[in-house]
């Protein structure tokens, strides 16, 4: 009897582990896909798959994070301003839902800032002031939540670099920040298989801009 109970418990534990394994596997596949997808259609397919995982795993922020990232990538590939805004709305909606699950999540906050940053690009003249303020605020929060988040630092450096260039002031602060971000990409080892890993290339080209 005792053995039976032990076996049952063991089995239950195994199935739970198995459930986790299924989630990690499914996520791993989609994360790979979101980094490599090229067209808007491909990205939409990946975002859909992430949404499917998300609705089955309501307590996890990762599907929402990568779904939002996919929407952001769609926005960067879209030319039409209204459609671009539509994808950014989709991204922000997922970020906000993610922040409800995982409060003060540095990665989600960095992505929020990225959404606002891309909003500026739609119409810099009329949006610059409002959305650059909002994105700086989100990046600040992201860095406060995790001072070693290389993506938050790198995106923040890009914003500050743009401002500094505009006013012809010194770019040493954003450049320093970009260098720090780049070193963190290599230094910070994360065991979490689902942790975001993008942004190194973007940071490298930023650092290159700083030291031509």
């Amino acid at each position, binding site marked *: 009897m005792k053995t039976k109970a032990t076996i049952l418990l063991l*089995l239950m534990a195994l*199935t739970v582990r198995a459930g986790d394994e299924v989630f990690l596997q499914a996520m791993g596949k989609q994360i790979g896909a979101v980094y490599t997808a090229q067209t808007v259609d491909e990205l939409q397919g990946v975002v859909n798959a992430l949404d499917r995982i998300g609705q089955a795993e309501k307590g996890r922020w990762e599907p929402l994070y990568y779904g939002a990232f996919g929407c952001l990538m769609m926005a960067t590939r879209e030319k039409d301003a209204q459609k671009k805004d539509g994808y950014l709305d989709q991204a922000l909606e997922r970020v906000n839902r993610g922040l409800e699950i995982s409060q003060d999540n540095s990665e989600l906050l960095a992505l929020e800032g990225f959404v606002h940053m891309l909003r500026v690009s739609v119409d810099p003249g009329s949006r610059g002031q409002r959305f650059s303020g909002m994105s700086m605020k989100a990046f600040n929060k992201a860095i406060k939540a995790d001072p070693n988040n290389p993506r938050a630092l790198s995106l923040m450096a890009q914003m500050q670099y743009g401002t500094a260039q505009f006013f012809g*002031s010194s770019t040493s602060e954003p450049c320093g920040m970009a260098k720090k971000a780049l070193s963190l990409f290599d230094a910070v080892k994360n065991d979490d298989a689902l942790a975001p890993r993008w942004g190194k290339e973007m940071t490298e080209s930023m650092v290159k801009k700083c030291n031509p």
Partner: protein
Amino acid sequence: MVTRLTIFWFLLSGTALAQTNLRGRVTDAQGNPIPGANILLRGTYDGSSTDNNGAFVFVSSEKGPQILVISAISFKPEEQPVELSGKEVFVSAVLKEAVTELNAVVITAGSFTAGDEDRRTTFKSLDIASTAGATADIAGALNTLPGTQKVGETGRLFVRGGDDNETRTFIDGMVVLDAYSPSAPNTPSRGRFLPFMFKGTSFSTGGYSAEYGQALSSALALDSKDEDETTRTDVGLLSVGADVAHTQAWTKGSAAAKVQYTNLRPYMGLINQQVDWITPPLSTEVSGAVRQRFGDKGLLKFYGNANEANFSLYQHAIADPTGKLPLEVTNRYRYGNLSYQVVLPRDWSVRTGVSYNTSAYDNTLATLAQRERGTALHVKAAFEKTTSSVVIRTGGELIDRDYRSAWTDEQQGTLTQSFHEPITAAFGEADITFSKNFVARAGVRGEYNGLTHNAALDPRLSLARKLGQGQLSLAYGRFRQSPQTQWLRANNQLHAEKAEHWMLSYQLITNSRTFRAEVYYKRYDDLVRFTVPGTLPSAFQPLNIAMDNSGNGYARGAELFWRDNRTFRNVDYWISYSYLDTRREYLYYPTAAVPSFASAHNFSVVYKHFVPKLKTQFGVTWSLASARPYHDPNRPGFLQGRTPNYSDLSANVSYLPTSWMIVHFSCTNLLGYDNIFGYTYATTPDAQGVYAGRAIRQPATRFLFLGIFITLSKNKGINQLPSL
């Protein structure tokens, strides 16, 4: 034991043995395929996306009854029950389009939208500050939009044949008394409320919501900021004074305070003025705002303003150039507005507010002294329920006005005129979205006036329909407003004046370009009228003339607007044209006539060009208005004279040397055009039987302004531009 375990394993993983094929097609209501739709079995990872033909196929190991969820961007998601038994399942789904803010038609007749950022906002504070000729005055910037008439000697808003009292200002939905700063007769006044404290200005030229009452022609709604801000200190050094502001931000809210000192004496000493000042305008103002969020659903806002202003000058008699009377004006103004809005469960939301407003004038004209006290209390609650196709708005308010004016003259003693007018009102309104192409708003507003014991019910109706890329809007409404204080204090039995608006507009907004064309007809009834026609009395003096509500009038016109900030890089420009045909028989008019504030044609071009290399924005505004009537007593007829056309070319330059400093310079009337706004005449003829006249001119040909704005904050990327 082994068998049992096998059975257990089988039960656990058995589902994998029987797989079901699911295939299907997703289309919209017209039968067009929807690509990229998401198909999933609820609670599982199983599903797929549709291809370019709207088709999908996937395999699931689930068994038994399941729910298939089909969703796509800008469509309402749909659910279908399916039975998974290993036999192929075919699903065909037709998705209904979701009505979202992005694709839905919105009611726009009368409510003016010049940008595409927020469809309810006409201007952001930056738009106002950077409009040349407006000198950072809200009314000044709005005067470049269609539907307004330039009445240069007042600086106020005159909308579609209505006088300046017919435009009502609201802050966060609460009414504002006496919205302009005091100014000398025939010199332009500025709005009391600076654009910088507000996130947006929405300007309606007619047909507005049943929520807004006591406005005959136009509603100007200012929305105070509710976004969280950063801690910062702003300092402004101006050629006419100085200001300092501080904003303190915390997680869930912020507080801002501003002190402003304006003294026109140095400027007036430098630049010759038409006005014979004794003391040029001097004012001190303190304003403050507090914002606090409660949870993520509630928002409490306070906005308050206290202002002391005074000036004195000599009024010169027309007939006798040596005769002059000293006029001194002192004004103390207080405004406080507390509002709370909260989102409730079941798609309800509530907005409540209370505002209290006092304005006290102490005026002296030679030996006549006037003490004027006005207060207004406004309490309001509005409830809103939003469903996918209907928005219902309902609420009630009390606007309680108390007014008293006492005149004291050494010879004639003291005379007092006063009134106490409590107005209670209820309103109800429904926005019904029939489809993303057609929306209707029907509303009604009921008012009871406790001074005249009159009750009234006013209907409002707006329709909007998509027409190609653009949209067509139609609006009708009846509006009423108590007579101007000057008349009401003399006769407490005068009831509200009435206006009916009909308007038809077409609007097309695409990628930072706006085109708008609008025609309207407006009928005025129950306007205040003197029973015996005479001349316009001075606002400073008590009035003892019999009046009733027998006046009437009409206004009709056509307007065009074009704004484009895309075609030319770093350029934003707009062009407005308004045609107005209006007549009214009211006040002292012996017959129906075009009022002196109306001009048939008004035209404006506003051009703003940012040059990144110079870190400078250049702005130019050109305004033209056709002749305005004036009354010449030396000729037969009434209001038969016509002024020359009005023309003004203004320019401004904003330079950003660093990220925390702005240098701003502006100049009105670059070409030095001698604008004449009308003529005033002596009340009695001279020995030859001729009434001596004098032109009403600009107080100075040009107005020059220089300001340096500095922002101190931890975040170096911030300057005053966002708040300007």
